[in-house]
């Protein structure tokens, strides 16, 4: 929806009710300067029970009087506004559009229907252009020649296949990367062996949130050290935002361009253990991700059977995320104010109501797109799409129902499986669900 200039706010606000007094104001309400319509008229107005003339009079007053407008809004029956989700993008970005005219928020831009179609058309045009310009390149399913060389060199490990990446990293770029990664590999080995000798434990220092997989592999951390060329502070490279990585995982999977560098079960049994394939990549350019792959690949090939590969091998899955999804994941923040769940799309500069229940909300938890909000008297809402739509959840078991105030919600789980939800409520009740809220247990 279009914003209005600030001066409009100012003038609307500057308008005072005494300039428009409804003639029908009741005598007992007629103050020296303010004649607000009494509760009868306001009620009848909200219930559409006034005659046209009376309605005009009340509206005339309401247009100028913020207090009466507030009274009407507060007095709207509660039942009807249970769980009003932020309806659409236009609603969601309403709060931002006032202030961010200069910032040209792309979300705001897309809230206009015309632009939405224009964006779609532009997208189609870009795809068509790419297909026209580089028809051959896109059809090349197998990895570029350089990659194959590496793969053969890396026998007997079956070479991990890197799918054609959507990022403009051409074969030439990759070869450059490759040579670099050869050097990097040696450095990594050197450093690693030094660290191992010294008995130094290289563990990621980042406080893991639920659902984050930490790369326990020392070799990997050492590698990462080298890769990111960061000061040797251990697992700096792993200090990533959990939500980002999860989001990126999704993005990659959705686009089908996941360069799954899954290490095939190889003759080298040392690579077995646990192959975990989560995202371990900072919000870095994809090039570096590929670099990581290459290095991982050459590394494993070059040092088979070394003790370093034991324990847990965490496979690097290069995450080629679209920047947009990262922006989204980064910027959406939530808060609860006066019992209303609010969210901000611009890191807290402006807020809009995301969920208003008939009872005040007290707490929320989010895990990726899953957002849970709890409130008084067993109020519990769940959104599986980042707050766009909401459903009320009523945990119950054996005729018992969650009825006390929900004071804390904990959501954990990985991106694939159903999340585990733990709800703490008053009376020391703890309700938990292991299947995303379908069935519940009470402790």
């Amino acid at each position: 929806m279009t914003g209005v200039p600030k001066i409009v706010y100012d003038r609307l606000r500057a308008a005072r009710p005494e300039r428009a007094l409804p003639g029908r104001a009741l005598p007992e309400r007629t103050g020296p300067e303010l004649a607000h319509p009494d509760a009868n008229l306001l009620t009848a107005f909200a219930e559409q029970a006034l005659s046209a003339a009376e309605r005009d009079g009340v509206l005339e007053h309401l247009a100028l009087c913020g207090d009466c407008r507030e009274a009407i809004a507060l007095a709207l029956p509660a039942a009807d506004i249970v769980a009003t989700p932020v309806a659409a993008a236009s609603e969601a970005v309403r709060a931002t559009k006032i202030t961010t005219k200069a910032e040209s928020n792309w979300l705001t831009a897309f809230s206009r229907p015309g632009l939405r179609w224009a964006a779609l058309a532009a997208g189609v045009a870009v795809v068509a252009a790419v297909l026209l310009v580089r028809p051959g390149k896109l059809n090349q399913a197998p990895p570029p020649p350089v990659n194959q060389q590496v793969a053969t060199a890396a026998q007997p490990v079956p070479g991990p296949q890197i799918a054609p990446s959507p990022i403009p990293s051409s074969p030439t770029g990759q070869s450059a990367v490759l040579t670099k990664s050869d050097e990097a590999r040696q450095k990594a080995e050197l450093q690693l062996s030094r660290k191992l000798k010294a008995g130094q434990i290289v563990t990621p220092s980042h406080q893991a949130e639920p659902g984050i997989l930490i790369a326990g592999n020392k070799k990997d951390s050492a590698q990462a050290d080298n890769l990111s060329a960061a000061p040797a502070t251990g697992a700096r490279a792993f200090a990533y935002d959990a939500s980002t990585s999860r989001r990126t995982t999704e993005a990659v999977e959705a686009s089908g361009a996941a360069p799954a560098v899954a290490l095939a079960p190889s003759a080298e049994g040392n690579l077995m253990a646990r192959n975990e394939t989560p995202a371990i990549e900072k919000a870095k350019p994809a090039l570096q991700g590929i670099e990581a792959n290459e290095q991982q690949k050459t590394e494993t090939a070059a040092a088979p059977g070394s003790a370093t590969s034991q324990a847990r091998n965490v496979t690097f899955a290069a995450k080629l995320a679209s920047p947009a999804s990262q922006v989204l994941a980064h910027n959406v923040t939530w808060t609860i104010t006066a019992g209303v769940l609010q969210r901000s799309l611009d890191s807290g500069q402006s807020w809009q109501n995301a969920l208003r229940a008939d009872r005040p909300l007290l707490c929320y938890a989010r895990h990726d797109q899953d957002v849970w909000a709890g409130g008084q008297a067993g109020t519990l809402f769940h959104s599986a799409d980042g707050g766009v739509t909401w459903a009320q959840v009523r945990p119950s078991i054996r005729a018992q129902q969650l009825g006390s105030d929900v004071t804390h919600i904990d959501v954990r789980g990985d991106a694939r499986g159903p999340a585990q939800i733990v709800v703490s409520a008053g009376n020391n009740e703890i309700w938990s669900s292991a299947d995303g809220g379908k069935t519940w247990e009470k402790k």
Partner: protein
Amino acid sequence: MPKPAESGHAADVATDLYERSGAAAYGVGAEQFTAILDEILRKYFDPVPNSAHASAEQKADFCAGLRLEELALARACAAGNERAWQDFISRYRQKLHGMALHITRDGAHAAELADSLFADLYGVNARDGVRRSKLVFYTGRGSLEGWLRTVMAQEFINRYRKQRRTVSLEEQTDEGVQFAAADPDPARASDQRLEAATDEALAELSSEDRFTLASYYLDGRTLAEIARALGLHESSVSRRLDRLATGLRKRILAGLRAQGMSHAQATEALEADVRDMRLNLRSRLTQDYEATTFPDSSRKVPARDPGGGSNNRQKP
């Protein structure tokens, strides 16, 4: 209401209204009820000069459109009828607490608000030794439940404003008020010409349009809330807002050009203004009147808890 004796027809109407109201069950006599209706008619018809000559039919229609049953209940309660009170309590006591919670969004304040309203309704606070229930002000124009909600909302707003004025410096510090960007001097910030053009554009709007604008942009109401207040569909409100925003812009620009600005100057004046904006809508929309907004003729409930939740309706 014409006097029942005036004509047989009027008497019939009055009897009919009385029967429909069920006032007899609460011990309200027919004459008493007619007097109540008369009082209401005077309220709504006499103060308006043009409708002073409203016909008897008009008045009868008006009375027929009232919530007679709820009116009888409310007035019987005000008169202290036991049975009416029992009915009232069984019907509304629970709802009152729900309403209060909905309005305050805070358990403690809700209980306080509901209790104080209940005391008002019962007329605990005697004035001149006469118990006076707030229910005598109910006129049956809207539903009794809606009226209760509105009265409660007004009470809440009054109280909230009172508390807001007494927010301590520490509390302000806690919520970072002193760090808020200084409000640019209105006189300096907005060009006189821009103001005039805007006022003119706003004045051209219908009051419903201005209500919609203010509710949405100033008060931050949702489309759904505005739609329900106006009895429209949400999409109509959305379309209207779009139309209003575009139209206002055009009209202000036209007004500025009419005052001798070039198109570029006018656009710049409007745009520069937008960028200057630092406003917390919610906190600035509540205008600080010295006078109590909803003067309550019966009594005022002192704010008992000026601490804790005094700012619970402010945006972060």
